[in-house]
């Protein structure tokens, strides 16, 4: 099974992880229009590319950031969310 390097637990099998989707900046719900809010809620950018994603190591309940190529499934980098500058967290 594919191994993912968890920043907290080291290399662990893929089965122990779930993907939380792309790291995106949330618009301010109080000031954004309905259109902007709905677009953020539903629309996704699923073009194949390297992108930053939220991942969770489920047995330890630890969320972190992974840079993954969605064409090759290569995990280029994984790091703690606190190390992500402007992660929208």
């Amino acid at each position: 099974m594919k191994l993912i390097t968890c920043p907290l637990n080291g290399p662990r099998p893929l089965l122990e992880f779930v993907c939380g989707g792309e790291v995106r900046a949330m618009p301010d719900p109080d000031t954004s229009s309905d259109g902007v809010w709905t677009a953020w809620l539903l629309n996704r950018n699923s073009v194949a590319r390297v992108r930053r994603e939220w991942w969770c190591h489920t047995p330890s309940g630890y969320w972190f950031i992974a840079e993954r190529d969605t064409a090759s499934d290569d995990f280029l980098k994984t790091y703690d969310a606190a190390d992500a500058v402007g992660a929208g967290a």
Partner: protein
Amino acid sequence: MPRRLLKFAVNSWLGRRHPEPRMFRAPERLKAGYEVVIIGGGGHGLAAAYYLARDHGIRDVVVIERGYLAGGNTARNTTIIRANYLTPEGVKFYDASMKLWRELSAELDFNLFYSPRGHLTLAHSDADLRTARWRAEVNKHFGVDSEVVDAGFVKKRVPEINLHCGGLTPIVGALYHAPGAIARHDAVAWGYARGADQLGVEIHQDTEVLGIDVVGGAVTGVRTSRGHIATKRVLCAVAGRTPAILEMIGLDSPLAIHPLQAMVSEPLKPWLDPIIVSSSLHAYVSQSARGELVMGASLDPHELHSTRSTLDFAEGLAANMLNLFPFLSEVKVNRQWAGMADMTPDFTPIMGVTPCEGFFLDAGWGTWGFKATPISGKTMSHTVATGANHPLIESFSLARFARLELTGEKGAAAVGH
């Protein structure tokens, strides 16, 4: 030796070209312009081309395909045809498709191996039975043959099934959909391709879209790897490649691409008549015309633009298959593959007009596209010809997301709910 065979041999010996006509022409170059450009030479695109020419008299149509004909999800699905969905919109749409399927071999004068088998959605719990009852009632209301049956019925239709199912998830009943069928996927695409070609449609393989020209909010042309095409109408039917095409014209969508894997066993003598589906076990199986067991499971859990296969998938699916049919432990897996499913948040397609004038979308086919091939061709050709959505696809529009009018089709296969 039959005379025809002799003719082939002599021609081949003389170095002549194959004397039989091909399924469709292969024009050497693209024309400078077409009335309609269809991106994607899969079942949906070819069906739309066929009905545009046949029903709407629009024959100046080109189908452009990046790879080879029907090499995408048309070749990668598990060919199950059914109409026992959950929402009124879904049931009406897929039932209209089934009516077309029944006549399709005769219509295209091509044997599609269309084979009504009966479709059993197994229930392993009271919750499963409740969903089955719900679906059956919605189906019956719209005239679709669908009923809840008990475990004895399942055993009678499939004597080889293990109702005990490994002990943890015994089978307590099923949703039975008698018209459920399978068909030969390649034949569907080739049949439509030949039909469209005979009506004047051009098919160009190995032709990739590089860009779409939009002036003043309306389509004016398509740039391809084999030259520019001027056109005012483009139909996009490219499943997993849809986000890349939408990016070219700056349209957003909720599509997310996930691989959907499947595998087949070595050929066996016919023993499995109905199509068996278990949402709880995330497994479905049918026996194809050539005896292979065609098996599928749920989507890969994270987004990926790749048709790679994984051992994890084969192991997980095999384990569930053995719970249903323990005797398969001696049977080998022949092939394994994946397709790229374009998933929507409500398990319903995205069809029809878009904010970009002249750009029509046939996407969001996730795990439910093959069975919709005829009706999607029919309704999209109407939409392209008239510029207005066909009534059957009104609730499938891209605009539904902005209005938060999602459909919630939980009768879709290969999705956990």
